């Protein structure tokens, strides 16, 4: 710990189940990613599926996160969103005060990231779409992904590799630049 008083900032990493969110966070985190658990609130249970037996025991949502020191004065927290749609109540908390979000996309399962793209658009959060080229091979051109996901022209569609620190860093740089553009436009 190099300073007594670092400023915390936060970026949310969203996307479908098993798209590589934890790998993405781990690739750039200074610490082994941690997990925080939240209990499902009564308010969120009210709109949950009544037939789900797990809620009767008290469902918890696990969120992985990492921490990146940016010089001595800033600490960047990276939070992975819980995968399933029914945990969207946690997303509201995650995006509050965030710089923005990276929506990770697996081109083999494009439909999995629809909810995340929808959510970020509706919430008005600055976000970028990042195609995770798992094996270093990009199977679909970013323009095709943009079209398939119906991502507006002003939202960057990037290519990343969740396993590699430099690629993850570049994706985060892309998001921050986009957030700056958004902040400038609304100033």
């Amino acid at each position: 710990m190099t300073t007594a008083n670092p400023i915390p900032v936060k970026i949310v990493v969203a996307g479908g189940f098993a798209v590589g969110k934890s790998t993405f966070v781990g690739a750039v985190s200074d610490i082994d990613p941690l997990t925080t658990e939240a209990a499902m609130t009564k308010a969120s249970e009210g709109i949950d599926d009544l037939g789900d037996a797990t809620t009767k025991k008290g469902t918890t949502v696990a969120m992985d996160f990492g921490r990146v020191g940016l010089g001595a004065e800033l600490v960047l927290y990276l939070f992975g969103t819980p995968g399933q749609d029914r945990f969207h109540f946690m997303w509201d908390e995650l995006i509050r005060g965030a710089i923005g979000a990276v929506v990770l996309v697996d081109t083999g399962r494009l439909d999995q990231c629809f909810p995340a793209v929808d959510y970020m658009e509706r919430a008005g959060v600055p976000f970028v779409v990042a195609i995770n080229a798992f094996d270093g091979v990009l199977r679909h051109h970013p323009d095709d992904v943009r079209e398939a996901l119906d991502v507006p022209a002003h939202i960057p569609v990037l290519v990343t590799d969740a396993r590699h620190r430099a690629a993850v860093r570049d994706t985060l740089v892309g998001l921050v630049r986009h957030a700056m553009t958004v902040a400038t436009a609304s100033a």
Partner: protein
Amino acid sequence: MTSTDTGASSFRVRPYLLTGGRTRSAVELALETIVRSTPQGHSALESLGMERKQIVSLCAEPQSLAEVSAHLRIHLQVARVLLGDLITEGHVALQAANAQPADRPDLALLERVLDGLQAL
């Protein structure tokens, strides 16, 4: 939805025994809000109950709410209530540099984040 207020579910009820059943914190704390224990907190360490003592000990180094929850394996909402109490009592303090939770970082802060990332 079947009510679980009867106490039949230990999974649900037990964490909230720590907070006296409260789910709201006296202090607004975001996941990333950084706290640190105070000299008063360190002095009072032996008089605190187990979870509160663990929090004050852990926060000798600045920690976020999310880290407190993760390291001590306490549900996020419970950690938030306990931290709120400790802050109200003066055993733990908010870092002066915390932004207001609802604010999106401004352009100046974003520029610093960009510089920091590019230097990684």
